[in-house]
């Protein structure tokens, strides 16, 4: 068996995971310097732009160590976001060790801690690495102390590096060889291989990424997935270099891929175990979990004619993203569309953005919500993830909503503000710990619904960029839930209905009514906009009728001008949705979701590195506000416009 080391890099976002991965690839001679481009593993445009890893990626690095021996270092790059924590856990289950990366200027943050716990759960060897030591603001001693006190790791073992400048990369590689336990596994036992990722290739179908724990697999073998219980014939196996490299076999300890004529990635499940049909393993590898969507929203095409295109785009998109679920949905206001389920808000935004970008679709997305449970008078229990299916209120005995545990790590001076935010968001059972002087970790139990809109954004704002946040799902808890309807001239706008906690209904009602008042143009008659729970009106605003619309003069050149204006208005009208007799522009639906651009965010300019600011901004404009109007290009332009203010 070759000398194999399977490892992952884990870090808080922006601490340099992708950059370090690039450097390792370059150091091991996988690419010539002139072919080198930044962030080799982040292959999607979206990943490069947002600077986040969305899909797992794997690469096998051949390395000759100082001891003169040849090693195969398998780097499994994991998605860097809590939405994908299950995928991360499967990737970690495929490793023997991790590099825990900490930014020397930022120190330990919430995801650093969360990731460390994940790694410890899998009993992995943990190598602390302090990155960005080239920065003037690097505080190596401070970070070492955090590693000691907050992470409980030996700070003297920490490797100092600068992924950007290429400092300390040799030490990192040597530490992997020396400290990560060699991958081993019984070659003679029946095949058991863990699926930790799956990608769609338009020529070959699904390419399954897996870690072989025992046995071996070759082309021609009949394999069986133990949970999904499907059988496929293996066409090709191999390892990941910069591209796929076929091998005769994959054996225990190796990380590689299997191509077996599997049509879509949905036919495989991450965490499933592959075994041989003829000689199956006794039991599957532990830790399999059914991944369930937790955030829901409906997607409609802006123009009703595009429904078929949207349907096709979703089908195609789904080929490569098994986590997205969707089903047909119809709204009186917005026409035919799809109700979709996502792993989290980031997942939702990624789907939205890729649909617009890669499939050139203009879509409109409703306010995201969660899946609620209702206990009915007749004893039945129903789950509702679409406000349109809210049960008859008179039949409801009680409701429940999902709760999370939020971990928030902040400098001490922000405790008051963050507490206030969490309490506003119906947080309960708070606890504090002081992992190191000047820093506080706050945990709160909060409704998931309260963090999916605006929360991270607000947190970043009030902590001037220093707050970090992570969460895990807890359970369902009783909750006083109501359905908030929005009425325009007494007609219900179904696409704007939402299920909310009774205490939050009024705030939402006021917010939506005000936004609509600002977005709906004056019409021939007065328009009343109301928020209502059942028959009870809880908020209202009105738009007066237009009273005069005629220019005084219309001669010569005025005529052409007038017609052009009319043509423009007519084009705008095509994008209006009729609710009763009222024309509502698309922008009104979008505006309901839009958050203000917080001025205080501008205060982040004192961060040591410019890049995180740009990131923050970009996240702010395109990520935290999924529904910022306009195409990605236009959003980019918005961003550009705002940049000078931050310099």
């Amino acid at each position: 068996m070759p000398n194999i080391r399977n490892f992952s890099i884990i870090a808080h976002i922006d601490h340099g995971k992708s950059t370090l991965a690039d450097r390792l690839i370059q150091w091991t001679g996988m690419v010539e310097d002139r072919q080198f481009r930044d962030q080799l593993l982040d292959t999607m445009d979206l990943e490069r732009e947002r600077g986040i890893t969305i899909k797992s990626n794997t690469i096998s690095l051949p390395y000759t160590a100082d001891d003169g021996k040849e090693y195969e270092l398998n780097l499994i790059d994991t998605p860097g976001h809590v939405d994908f924590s299950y995928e991360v856990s499967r990737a970690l289950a495929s490793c023997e060790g991790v590099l825990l990366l900490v930014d020397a200027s930022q120190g330990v943050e919430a995801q650093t801690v969360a990731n460390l716990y994940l790694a410890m759960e899998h009993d992995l060897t943990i190598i602390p690495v302090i990155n960005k030591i080239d920065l003037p603001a690097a505080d190596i001693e401070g970070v070492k102390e955090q590693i000691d006190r907050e992470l409980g790791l030996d700070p003297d073992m920490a490797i100092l590096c600068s992924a950007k400048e290429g400092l300390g990369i040799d030490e990192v590689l040597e530490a992997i060889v020396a400290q990560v336990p060699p991958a081993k596994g019984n070659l003679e036992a029946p095949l058991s291989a863990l699926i930790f990722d799956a990608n769609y290739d338009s020529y070959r179908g699904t390419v399954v990424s897996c870690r072989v724990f025992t046995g071996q697999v070759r082309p021609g073998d009949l394999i069986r997935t133990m949970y999904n219980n499907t059988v496929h014939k293996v066409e090709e196996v191999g390892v990941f270099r910069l591209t796929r490299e076929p091998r005769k076999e994959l054996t225990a300890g190796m990380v590689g891929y299997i191509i077996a004529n599997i049509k879509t990635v949905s036919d495989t499940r991450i965490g499933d175990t592959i075994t041989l049909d003829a000689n199956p393993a006794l039991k599957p590898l532990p830790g399999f979990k059914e991944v369930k969507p937790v955030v829901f929203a409906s997607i409609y095409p802006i123009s009703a004619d595009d429904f078929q295109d949207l349907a096709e785009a979703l089908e195609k998109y789904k080929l490569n993203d098994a986590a997205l679920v969707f089903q047909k949905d119809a709204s009186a206001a917005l026409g035919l569309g799809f109700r979709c389920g996502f792993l989290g808000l980031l997942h939702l935004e990624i789907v939205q953005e890729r649909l617009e970008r890669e499939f050139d679709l203009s879509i409109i997305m409703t306010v995201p919500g969660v899946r609620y449970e209702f206990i009915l008078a007749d004893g039945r229990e129903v789950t509702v993830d679409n406000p349109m299916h809210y049960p008859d209120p008179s039949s409801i005995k009680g409701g429940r909503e999902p709760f999370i545990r939020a971990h928030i790590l902040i400098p001490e001076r922000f405790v008051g503000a963050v507490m206030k935010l969490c309490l506003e968001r119906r947080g309960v059972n708070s606890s504090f710990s002081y992992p190191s002087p000047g820093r506080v970790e706050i945990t709160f139990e909060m409704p998931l619904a309260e963090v999916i809109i605006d929360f991270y954004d607000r947190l970043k704002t009030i902590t001037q960029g220093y707050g970090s946040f992570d969460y895990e799902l807890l359970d369902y808890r009783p909750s006083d839930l109501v359905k908030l309807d929005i009425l325009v001239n007494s007609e219900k706008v179904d696409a704007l209905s939402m299920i909310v906690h009774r205490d939050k209904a009024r705030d939402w009602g006021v917010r939506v009514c005000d936004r609509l008042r600002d977005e709906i143009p004056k019409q021939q008659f007065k328009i009343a906009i109301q928020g209502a729970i059942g028959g009870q009106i809880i908020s209202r605003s009105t738009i007066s009728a237009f009273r005069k619309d005629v220019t005084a003069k219309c001669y010569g050149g005025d005529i052409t001008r007038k017609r052009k204006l009319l043509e423009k208005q007519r084009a705008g009208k095509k994008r209006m949705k009729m609710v009763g007799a009222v024309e509502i522009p698309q922008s009104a639906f979008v505006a309901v979701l839009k958050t203000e651009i917080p001025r205080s965010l501008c205060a982040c300019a004192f961060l040591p590195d410019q890049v995180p600011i740009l990131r923050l901004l970009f996240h702010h404009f395109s990520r935290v506000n999924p529904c910022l109007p306009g195409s990605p290009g236009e959003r980019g332009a918005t961003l550009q416009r705002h940049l000078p203010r931050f310099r």
Partner: protein
Amino acid sequence: MCALVESLRRPFDFAPDTEFTLEVNPDDVTPEKLRLWRDLGINRLSLGVQSFDEPELRFLKRRHTARQTIRALEQIRTAGFRNLGLDLMYGLPGQSLKRWTETMKTALSFAPEHLSCYQLTIAAGETPAPPSETPALPTPFARLAARGELTLPDDEAQRDFFLLTGQFLRDHGYVHYEVSNFAKGERYCCRHNLKYWSHTPYLGLGPAAHSSMAGRRWWNHCSLQSYTATLAKGELPVAGSETLTPEQLRLEALCLGFRTREGVALEIIRQFPGWEAVLSELQGSGLLQLTAGRVAATPEGLVVADRLPLLFVD
């Protein structure tokens, strides 16, 4: 002036009932000029009166005074002009309905055959013409308004002004034949105006003049310099043109027609899908009326005339 008219009479045959209008300002008028204009065959004068109120005239940056206007009006009548139009301006900042009514009364005391009453508006929301076309020059008022130094009456007040103007002049025997135009009887409707709104062919001469024929429209250079330079090269001084599609013609028919008493022929309305529902709704709300196969705006409809076409297009 003589040379100009001379050069017009050479190529063109003037019909006996030609409407030959000269636009003048009160301070242009003298008995000598009036005699000359009559001798040249000019049979209609359009006088830029604007107001009979001194502060208003100063606000409008006019060179003339109210007294000059009154003298000019007397001289015009003495000189025998029997077809006279006055231009007035209303809806000025701070103007009351009462003061505007006084202005109209003064105007009527000269029994003008024609009145153009323009409400002061700032052309907001209109698409600026591309540079190749006649630009809608930003008026000094637009600039003032942009700087927040000018506040016009609000929509509701503008509406009151507009409705009052129509009512007052109709009560005094004028035909309200277009949004801003009134005539003392059918035969004094300005033919120069009417042709713009009915797709009648017309030829405009001189810088910035617009012409139209058979679904094509073109306009001359605005600047005198490029106008003469092109002419000197032996070319037509045309700065731009457009050819209207049938669709655009229909659209214009609506947007021009709804501004006039003539209205729009029902055959044209019929070409817009779903017209029946829209028409009956607008009839019901008292904005349009259907008479003898033509659909026209009521006085209430005229106040929102620019909005009406939009309700017929999908």
